[in-house]
């Protein structure tokens, strides 16, 4: 017995004294140093890149910093405080809404940086260098495109921002001036333009996933279109570099001249753009796509794959909506009537088919609402109170071909005056809206003003190409706000240049006093 015990104890001691007992074993865990090797790894990084990009566009909160626009307003209190602060020009840096754009844009930038800084580590398959090169180029092109898009959102929101191009962590970084940010955006888009194919379907060595998601990929046309918009913005406030008008026009023209090659058209009916069944359409130059029923909440991508802009954010509270944002009265009244206006606003609806028709004058908020973003399967204006879910799978058109046409028209007018193509571009948009062609012989400035008005109606309601951006770059925030209807929420501050950009959100200012 005694011996047995001794043997037992000795066994315990000898077995358990192995030196690596306290080493940390990591069976299922992948460390970054062991990753980034194959095109399969790369494809997963790109998948997450688009999930990150989705987060910039899947809720009204991210674009709440555009609520100063004369097209949108919100409720005066409650959880709309974050929206209201922009609407009444009294923004605090701890506002819980616009910080979502800040964090999500930098999230997308980090993911782009993960791809860009690790791109040389992807070396497999070694036996198919052509495939490796093609897929790496497209991944890199998409990373540059999303990084540029993210910075474009950030710089238009906060103007001076931290400029991050690597994966280090710093608590004392200084803000970069807008010119530096725009320089990087232009560089990124220029690279994306050359790395991305003009038409994905014609590209070589496509993976099976790429083949099934051609509609979701930015092409060189997407990059050029975005670059044209960036140039146009740089020509206005605050960079005010007039030479950029010509670059904007030239870049837009590259797209327009080859619109068939890229496959871009204007849909014949403005209303068709907003139909759920037209999620994928030929007017979308770049779109983001969602499926909110697939994920489970254990995955970081689940929230990124639903769209909370619809069905409740834009819906009147009378029908169970959230009243996040709705139309300003002056804007609605001045909106030229026609099929575009009809498709833009929800001016009346029934809660259930047996309820009386409720017109916007009798909504609780006494404002018309935006209809553009309401359509999902089952949506019915005669049964507007029907509950489906708090989020949906609607797609978001980040860049529409109409924008490219109008960028050309405006930029051309401001760099040598409108030419025939400029007229064609703006009139294509106008005729679809049921409006007459612009009169010929307009001056560059008058033509440009007309185009900006066109953009105002065309992109109303905080589309990603928001009205607010035009008001800032053309320095018309003050004049546009002067027409605000007295029935709107009273302004806390009269707008001035001080209100053109939002402060860096407090979440980072408390971490880094240099911001």
């Amino acid at each position: 017995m005694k011996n047995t015990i001794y043997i037992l104890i000795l066994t315990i001691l000898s077995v358990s004294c192995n030196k690596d007992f306290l080493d940390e074993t990591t069976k299922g865990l992948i460390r970054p140093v062991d990753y980034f090797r194959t095109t399969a790894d790369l494809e997963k990084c790109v998948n997450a890149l688009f999930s990150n990009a989705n987060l910039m566009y899947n809720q009204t909160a991210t674009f709440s910093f555009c609520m100063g626009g004369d097209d949108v307003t919100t409720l005066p209190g409650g959880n709309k405080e974050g929206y209201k602060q922009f609407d009444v020009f009294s923004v605090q840096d701890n506002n819980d809404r616009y910080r979502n754009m800040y964090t999500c844009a930098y999230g997308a930038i980090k993911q782009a940086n993960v791809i860009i800084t690790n791109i040389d580590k992807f070396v497999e398959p070694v036996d198919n260098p052509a495939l490796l090169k093609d897929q790496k180029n497209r991944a890199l092109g998409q990373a540059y495109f999303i990084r540029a898009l993210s910075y474009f959102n950030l710089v238009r929101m906060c103007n001076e921002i931290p400029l991050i191009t690597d994966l280090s962590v710093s608590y004392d970084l200084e803000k970069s001036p807008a010119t530096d940010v725009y320089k990087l955006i232009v560089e990124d888009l220029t690279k994306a333009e050359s790395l991305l194919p003009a038409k994905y379907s014609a590209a070589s060595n496509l993976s099976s996933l790429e083949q099934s998601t051609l509609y979701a990929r930015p092409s060189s046309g997407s990059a050029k279109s975005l670059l044209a918009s960036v140039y146009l913005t740089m020509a206005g406030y605050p960079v005010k570099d007039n030479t950029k008008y010509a670059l904007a026009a030239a870049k837009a023209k590259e797209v327009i001249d080859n619109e068939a090659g890229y496959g871009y058209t204007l849909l014949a009916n403005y209303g068709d753009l907003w139909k759920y069944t037209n999620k994928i359409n030929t007017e979308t130059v770049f779109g983001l796509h969602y499926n909110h029923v697939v994920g489970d909440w254990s995955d970081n991508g689940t929230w990124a794959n639903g769209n909370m802009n619809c069905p409740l954010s834009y819906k009147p509270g009378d029908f169970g909506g959230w009243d996040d944002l709705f139309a300003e009265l002056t804007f609605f009244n001045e909106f030229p009537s026609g099929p575009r206006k009809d498709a833009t606003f929800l001016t009346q609806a029934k809660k259930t088919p047996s309820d009386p028709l409720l017109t916007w004058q009798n909504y609780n908020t006494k404002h018309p609402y935006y209809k553009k973003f309401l359509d999902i399967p089952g949506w019915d204006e005669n049964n507007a109170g029907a509950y489906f879910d708090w989020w949906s799978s609607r797609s978001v058109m980040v860049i529409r071909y109409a924008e490219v046409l109008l960028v050309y028209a405006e930029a051309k007018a401001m760099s040598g005056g409108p030419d025939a193509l400029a007229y064609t571009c703006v009139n294509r948009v106008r005729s679809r809206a049921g409006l007459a062609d612009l009169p010929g012989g307009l001056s560059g400035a008058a033509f440009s003003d007309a185009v900006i008005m066109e953009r105002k109606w065309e992109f109303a309601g905080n589309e990603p190409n928001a009205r607010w951006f035009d008001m800032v770059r053309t320095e018309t925030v003050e004049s546009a706000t002067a027409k605000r209807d007295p029935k709107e929420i009273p302004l806390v501050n009269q707008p001035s240049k001080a209100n053109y950009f939002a402060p860096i959100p407090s979440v980072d200012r408390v971490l880094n006093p240099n911001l």
Partner: protein
Amino acid sequence: MNLHKSMLKRILLFLIFAFIAGQQILLAQRLTVTGMIKGPNGEALPGVTVVVKGTTVGTSSGSDGTYSLSVPAGDAVLQFSYIGYTSQEEPLNGRSVINVTMTESATQMDEVVVVGYGTTRKSDLTGSVSTVSAKNFVAEPVKTFSQAIQGRAAGVVVTNNSGAPGGIVKVRIRGTSSLYGSNEPLYVVDGVALNINVADLNVNDIESMEILKDASATAVFGNRGANGVVMITTKRGLSEVPKIQVNIEPAVSNIAYRYDLMDAGTFAEFVNVYRPGYFTSQQISDYKANGGTDWQKEIFRTGITQNYQVSATGGSTHTKYFISGQYLDQSGILLNTSQARYSLRSNITTELGKKFKLEFNIYGGRIKGLNNRENGNKTNPVISAVFYSPTWPVYTAYGTWNRFDNLCGPLALNPKMVLEERYSDNLSNSLTSNMRLSYKIIDDLTLDVLFGADVNDYQNGYYENSWINASTTKAGIWTSNNFFWQNSNILTYKKNISNIHDIVVTGVYEQSRNTYESFTGNGSGVDPITVGYHNLGIAKTQTVTSSWSQYSLRSLLGRVSYTLLNRYLLTVSYRADGTSKFQDPNKWGYFPSAALAWKLSEESFLKDNSVINNLKLRGSWGITGNQGINPYATISRIGSMMNTFGLSQSLPGSIVVGIDNPDLKWETTTQTNAGFDLSLFKNRLNFSADYFIKETDDLLFGVTIPAYDGGGKVNKNVGTMENKGFEIVVSGKPVSTSDFSWDVNINFTSIKNELTSLGQDTFLLGGNYAPGLTQESPFCLKVGESMGSFWGYEWQGVYTSAESADAAVYGFKPGDNKYRDWNNDKKIDSKDKHVIGSALPDFVWGFNNTFTYKNFDLNIFLLGQQGNKMLNTVYATSSVILSDATTINHMDGLNYWRPDNENADFANPTNNSNKNEIISTKFLQDASFTKIKNIALSYNLTRDILKIADLKLTVSAQNLLTFTKYKGFDPETSTSANDIDGAIDVGAYPSARTFTFGIQASF
């Protein structure tokens, strides 16, 4: 129901078996001995064990103190024993009547107390240790460990996260000392660290719990000792006489509080005040005539509890056993919530020859819960039942669910529908076992080798049908397996030298390892959803995840306890702990401690004092650690972020999560303790008091990475925290006569917590529990303040007409809420937020009384907390208009400002200029409370009446009455689960008022 029947049948069979066994013992007897057993004051002493020495023949005295026992004739010796009394032996010497007077053990100080890696006499303790033994909670039908400990030990604070059967409970010993690491104490069961949930144990198996509090007691547990240690000792067989005990405890539970809400007519009328014309006058008069929906009535019900407990002890001279089984079935007071528990335990002790002793304990438990794990979010049924419109019918005219009422807000679905249609079950199978082999190498030197193993299989399955999730049906299952083993080898040397020097030296070498694996499968588009999560293959889309993690600990410990002349006591210990969670050179931590005690009552000037029979001063100092974070906290990894591109399938995505931080190490807590123990009048009155200071350095904390660098957190050691406090225990037996006695225990704990540094930060917000309802976290971490501090506005009432000029400065008008302008900038904005209270109580107390009169026992147990606050969002959603809860339902809301009601409690809901800040002193309510936790009356029917068994009948009530200013379901139950985020009620599952009937039969 069938299950209950078959369980009853089994218990009956068991009873019959036990009865027959008892008869067989009777048959073997020849001579009857009777007698009367009395206590020191001449009172009858029931329950005294009487055994014929060296046999299994025995009995116990009845309630009148008499016994009757048939013994083999001749030179038999009777042993009389009873806890707390000195055992006696009486040789028969031919007598047939033996009366005995028991004397109480010299002091209760001679009780043996379990400490880390050993035992000691209570009188020799140098550290601060509280003991809760089974007799302290036997009068209350406790169902869980936390109910047994709450209010019964100084220094321990228990907080409920949920009153659901099997709801989550926080136990904190001497405050919270960690921000990011665990604040849960270390549980050690029969010498082995417990790595299943302590709530999974059968509390009825617990003989005693020692709560180790000061560093001298806890430093022997090194880097797991900082949060205190609970040493649980399970019951084991003591005598050779077989004893069978059966408990049957049916109970009914109800909600103890109802919000005072408007009836449908009043509600509709009031809606028309702030939404003119919403209801027609016809509708209003209809509601007045016919009433509406009482949502609270719809969602709560009477919960039924059935508890069956059987245990058997006994053995032979060398082998003793304790076996127990339990079946507990509880249906909750909220519709469609329940939990059932089944458990078995077998504890066996055997002596193998003279030198070896073997103990083997094994416990298996199975817990099955239904919808009992939700903590509350802003649309959960408990909160939505309070703000849902009484004008909204539960069902449509077609008898289907009336799904969604948008009058009361944009989010919440019909609360009754949610309760009835949701489905989430959980299943936990636990096995904990340990073996201790003691080997007496020489007389003074013992080696103990312990092996312990814990296994837990956990499973959580859910489904969402189209009522719950309108977009798609969903179902999923999560399973996990946790395996823990520990080996401890303890060498103990005890030597007494001429009654002058008493020395105990302990050396320990210990290793343990924990391995965790999980697997989840989820599907959406599961049609038909009637299959639940049992056929995920039919789902339109499926996702699968799995994980694996492991950590290991290796430790060395040395301890010396030295007593000089039974007066001066010294304990020093030193532990070295290695953990796999940190990287070199931070793997190893070193934890010393020292304690001194002086037994003044042993000094000549007090030795024979007639009043003071014990007085001891204690002082200790030591260092403990906390490594309670998840493994792999020091390394970054590739995480998953799937994408769909709008397709109906989940496409895997990869992101980089975290950054490497190899410098991370454990937290260090330095604790100093001073205290004394005093016993008067032969232990009739006992005092004990302790004062302590705990300083925690290198706090583990998730430091925020700037959003511009991708955000997230990285674990770092930043900051310091201090807990200071004192504990007082008064216990005694103020009255003790032959017919009547009164036992009392009062304990009082006051702890002051302060965050003394946060590294580079001085202020951080906590978590947000009801985003949308609250715009920011109501909680903050602020240097100089305590954990659980609230960050919000100070509400100063409602502006009166006389204050209209003042109101106008802020853009308000009479009838609007008035908030304090802290920075005096004539604006009310987030810069006016302040620390407006704390969720930590100033003090907690327990007051436990047992009165015994003849065959009756009465237990009255009160406990309370004072000074703690809770943010009541349930009250807020029902009393003011918010964007997520757009109506006023609470009767209090009617007291709103009008020109003819200037001094109103609530702002005028029709004022557009008014702002309702939820995170303000308006809704931060005083959650101090006094509860009658248990009141129980028992009657003992003794064997001499029933012949077969002792029977004890008990009627009792738990949570009978709560005295509080808190205007909500339960001041004790908070939605927040961690310690930074103090206390917030977002519709937490309220604890119930329970009436229990108990039958206990002892054979």
